[in-house]
């Protein structure tokens, strides 16, 4: 099967620090893939490179929309989003002065197009577009289970709900690949379980592939079909949850930490 995202030999340097060291990764359609590794291994940097926040020092990032190969290196983050990669942030970055609904509506920015003139004259096309944005955003909130908060300011939400709102916002961009950076961080076991269900639902119902960074091993092991392990910027292992669990190199990298549940 052809991959939908392929990262080849990617390296990212910050001055003298090599945060990512020639890493390869590929994701197939509908797959849930996890990227794990100790703190400071370079996982978030990996996301930032793929989504255009950083331009990798070397290597290639390819996507294959409609079978055609496209290179993502050097594209601006907003263009990458338009191409169908959406992400959430490890340190929650919601639009704090906007309501929950508006946060999701912003996610629709990539797929709508009303300009200044459209805004001022508010013709039929703009009105229809606005209605569509509101309807779609509300639909997503319902799916994620946040509809009771629609008009609440995003900043007033409980922590777990804020993390879910990040996912809702990312879904509004109509992605084919969703990049989740530690979505379970700070959640209690109950919330984590719901998140597990939510991620599965997103994949199963919409066919959206998922790349997941997570420290919660239980979640990673139960969700992912393939796991990549990085340490000090290098890929040290790749395989099914079963293979990773028993890989001595991985166990050594996580020295002292419990891999299985």
């Amino acid at each position, binding site marked *: 099967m052809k991959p939908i995202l392929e990262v080849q030999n990617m390296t990212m340097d910050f001055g003298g620090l090599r945060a990512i060291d020639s890493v390869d990764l590929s994701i197939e359609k509908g797959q849930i893939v996890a990227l794990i590794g100790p703190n400071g291994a370079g996982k978030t940097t990996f996301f930032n490179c793929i989504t255009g926040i950083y331009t990798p020092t070397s290597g290639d990032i390819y996507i294959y929309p409609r079978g055609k190969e496209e290179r993502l290196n050097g594209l*601006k983050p907003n263009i990458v*989003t338009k191409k169908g990669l959406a992400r959430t942030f490890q340190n929650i*970055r919601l639009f704090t*002065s906007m309501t929950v609904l508006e946060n999701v509506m912003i996610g629709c920015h990539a797929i709508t197009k009303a300009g200044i003139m459209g805004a001022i004259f508010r013709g039929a096309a703009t009105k229809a577009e606005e209605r569509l944005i509101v309807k779609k955003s509300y639909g997503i909130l319902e799916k994620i289970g946040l509809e009771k908060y629609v008009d609440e300011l995003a900043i007033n939400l409980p922590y777990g709900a804020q993390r879910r709102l990040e996912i809702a916002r990312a879904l509004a961009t109509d992605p084919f690949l969703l990049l989740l950076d530690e979505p379970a961080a700070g959640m209690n076991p109950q919330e984590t379980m719901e998140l597990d269900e939510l991620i599965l639902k997103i994949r199963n119902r919409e066919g959206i592939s998922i790349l997941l960074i997570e420290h919660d091993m239980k979640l990673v092991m139960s969700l992912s079909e393939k796991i990549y392990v990085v340490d000090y910027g290098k890929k040290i292992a790749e395989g099914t949850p079963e293979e990773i669990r028993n890989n001595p190199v991985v166990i050594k990298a996580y020295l002292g930490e419990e891999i299985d549940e």
Partner: protein
Amino acid sequence: MTAQNEIKKSILASLWFMFLTFPIMVIKVNTVTNSIEWRWHNMAIVGIGAFFLSMLWRYLLKRKEEGRKKDQSDGLSIVQRLLHERRFALPGLMIIGIFTLLFPHIFSMYQTNIMISALIFVVLGLGLNIVIGLAGLLVLGYAAFFAVGAYSYALLNLHYGIGFWIALPIGGIFAALFGILLGYPVLRLRGDYLAIVTLGFGEIIRLVLENWNEFSFGPSGIKNIPKPGFFGIEMSMHTTTIYIFYIVVVLVIFTIFVINRLKNSRIGRAWVALKDDEIASQAMGIDKAKTKLRAFALGATWAGMAGVVFASKTTFINPASFTLWESVIILCTVVLGGMGSIAGVIAGALLLILLPEYMRDFGQFRMITFGAVLILMMIFRPGGMIEDVRKTYKFEK
């Protein structure tokens, strides 16, 4: 804390103030008799004043702390509730409308002229509100765009005889171009860095106007700028003033209409998103450069149009009308009124322009009052007089 404690604190504050103001309030050198006057009664006034003000100050701080603990949702002020209640909003608007229509007929020319100035600042405040209140770009040299508009009209009229009505959109467009010109190099800057660069930009424009004699006639400015025409009909001084008043009113209404629409549009939301978090906005597909440039251009447009009206009202302009002080006043109207809130900015502009006009006796205290009011606002009502409320939407399920 006990009452005793409070009094002790206030006494300390008052002693401190008496000490600080001693050299200027108490000692006075009489240059005629070459002797020193000791004005001890001043010290008493300072002491007592400081004592009570410090009491009041701490009382207000305490009240604010208590207010914060309450539920956020019922923190809406009376004005906000009125604005959101159709029952009150409609008659309220009608009364304001009728009052505005009758204003130049009820009040004197002098009052009307002051009102025109105030309304010009309403337009300026609303324009700057796009840049600062919505897009969160702290621009300090906003008066430069005002100058661009005013000089566009003055010079176009001088050299090509272009009239007010054609100059109005041209002034807006020129200012917008300058907005993009300024916006482009500062796309990466935020907050105080942006403020400093834009402050410099404002000063550059003023200095150019002041020194480039061949182009702008330097500090002596441009005279005899025609007032707006009405199908070539001759009008008396009085009628022209009334005419300009109505033009400004229409301009204000037009501004409110456009900004209100922009605010609740895809673009407006993108501005607020950028203000909240640039990286997340970009990850949501917002083009940072394009969106910011739009804010600069649209914000400047209103300053440009206000400039054209200003030039036609005063019939004489020179660089002294477009100094940093003007920029600061416009900024204050936005901050004081309520960032992002249209009603707030209007209230702020009217207050800041009209109050000093009617309290000319306090002229020398203007700066200090401005400063004090701003600091008080920052502490007690950081959202401004009329805080912005986000729009909510209805759903058909």
